[in-house]
């Protein structure tokens, strides 16, 4: 079975549509959404509605920090831009949409796989996996062979060998990487709705559960249109700029 791994959509309707079409063309039969459906982008309602349809049809979905923040409302601990985005987003979601986000689990385990937004050791604290030592910490915190997460917006693949050594790998798009049974793996597909590695194309990955192979993808989409909507909505200019590949 081919499973599409999609993280950090961030209310980006254009990217979401492009990724779904690409995933369908790859023959994916199921989706796993790794959190942060809202925040930053101009189409939170549309994205949450599509999410609800997918979850009703059997998709996996876990909660991200942006989803939790929008549910909780703006906090004084947030920087000004973040507070503005949370408030703006919350205003555009109806009670049913907010309830959907509030009900999402922090983690989900299926067979050999753990799905979580940030990390396995403290999912609700949202610490970033910034390198192999954090990746190892996360891999030691679960007994599952595969961990799929988001939060960090750059595609990465970590592994932990039988001798406890962690390795990191920056994947190239379109290459099927066999995930050896001799080690445990942590994959970050990268952000679909707000990539941050200088390439504006949307990120996601496909996990082939039979072949035990993971393929990272980049999907070009009309990021200029998404950025124009962000600007038109009066959201921070920095958010719009980043959609074009600027850091």
């Amino acid at each position, binding site marked *: 079975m081919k499973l599409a791994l999609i993280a950090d959509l961030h209310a980006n309707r254009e990217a979401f549509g492009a990724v779904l079409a690409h995933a369908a063309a790859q023959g994916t039969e199921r989706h796993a959404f790794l959190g942060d459906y809202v925040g930053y982008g101009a189409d939170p309602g549309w994205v949450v509605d599509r999410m609800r349809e997918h979850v009703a049809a059997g998709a996996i979905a876990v909660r991200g920090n942006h989803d939790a923040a929008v549910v909780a409302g703006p906090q004084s601990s947030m920087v000004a831009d973040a507070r503005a985005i949370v408030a703006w987003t919350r205003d555009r979601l109806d009670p049913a949409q907010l309830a959907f986000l509030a009900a999402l689990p922090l983690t989900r385990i299926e067979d050999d796989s753990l799905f979580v937004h940030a990390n396995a050791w403290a999912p609700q604290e949202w610490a970033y996996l910034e390198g192999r030592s954090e990746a190892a910490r996360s891999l030691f915190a679960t007994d599952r062979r595969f961990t799929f997460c988001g939060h960090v917006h750059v595609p990465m693949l970590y592994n932990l060998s039988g001798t406890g*050594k962690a390795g990191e790998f920056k994947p190239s798009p379109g290459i099927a990487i066999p995930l050896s049974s001799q080690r445990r793996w942590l994959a970050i597909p990268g952000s679909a709705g707000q990539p941050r590695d200088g390439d504006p194309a949307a990120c996601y990955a496909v996990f082939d559960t039979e072949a035990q192979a993971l393929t990272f993808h980049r999907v070009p989409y009309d990021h200029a249109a998404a950025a124009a909507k962000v600007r038109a909505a009066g959201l921070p200019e920095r958010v719009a700029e980043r959609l074009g590949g600027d850091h």
Partner: protein
Amino acid sequence: MTTEGSVAPASLEAGQVIDGYRLDALAHRGGMATLWNVSRVDADASSDAVLALLMKVPRLRGGEDPTAIVGFEVEQMIMPTLTGPHVPRYVAHGDFTRLPYIVMERIEGHSLRERLDAAPLPVDEVAQLGARVATALHDLHRQRVVHLDVKPSNVLLRRNADGSDGDAVLIDFGLSRHDLLPDLLEEEFELAMGTSPYMSPEQVRFVRNDPRSDLFSTGVMLYHLTTGKRPFGAPTSARGLRQRLYREPTAPRTLRADCPPWLQEVILRCLEVRPERRYQTAAQLAFDLQHPDQVVLGERASRVGSGSALGVVKRWFVSLRDSETVEGGAGGQSARSPIVLAAIDIDGAEPALLEAARDTARRLLETDAGARLACLAVMRVNRVGMDELLDADGTPRHLKLLIALRHWARPLQQALSTPAHAGRDAAARVTFHVIEAVDPATAIIDYARRNQIDHIVMGARSSGRFRRHLGSVSARVVAESDCTVTVVRAPTGAG
């Protein structure tokens, strides 16, 4: 007898069936692995039935030998990605949780190791063997794999129908590295990996991503086949290994008077301490070995004796330098500013062809600092009748092509914004154009004429489908354009 549950490799015996493969006979029992001749039990049901099969089972001693375990993991990962006549065809592999193995094509022929005992060999034979190995390596490198353990026992020669030696086949990918797959060995071990007589200086320094390392190892083989001796011995200590960083090998002609100067030039060029001074590709090495009269004889060809004190110092000094000085520099650049047109069949061409076209365009741009690139996609419309200008999802086709074209050019623009190209605005050097046309060839020719294009880069015919309907677009552009046209093909055998 069918096996279930975990299997101990040591207990394997002839007649046993593992995952549908019957062990017919023990072919080889080595230090690292056991090789079995096997056959499929349901031979009729498989296209592999006609292929002679070999099962490689690693000898793993309960976690004592992590390199062997990781090496086999690496081989299981890389072998399935390889194709072509210069590697054994991959068939299947077994999981570590039960019994790790790889089933592959059994190569009928002999190992280059056997010829080593007969060294020194006739010069013609050395050149011929070297050319075969280099050809095989080039095919491997094109598939983005560096072997990193090139040595005679890892080279097999296919037996031709008439009994003569055929293509070289590379085996044992346990130390190899694939550009686009995780390097499990680099992550796991902080030590130099390879076979000591053959390891390149960069391997000694833990660098695992340079295909020119394989050319160094090939040079060691050529040296040995030519002189009967190893250029750097067979050191067993790290210190001994590092000697190749500063000690010049004895010149082959000093050990063998009838070694022609061209062969010494080729061998010593392979054995240069810095990869930049070796052949840059295995294909270049294969070419020289096949065209001795074309080899340009330099200082290496006339070298005599072993490393003099001065030679030692020189090699050591060279090994310390971090990078070669690039000749010319920015000031030497020509003031010419050609316009290059990349006519890209963005939604019809295969990814490998798109990549090849981009590489060609990038090279042209990098060569001429003032060059500009116009990226063009032709949106085909019908001569009569209404055209669908929107896609099924409502995106204008024109916009979709433009987005795809920009995506195609992005790596190129990134290459142009590196420090080497500082001072030039990368964005201003690349432009994008989508035009509508009934006939793509005429549209490209007209566009080039109108815009004073100097050079058109385009892919060869994209697919059988378009070719049937339109004939070859590139053939017409080549025939009818006023300017230079480069027709790019995807490399064959790229995996």
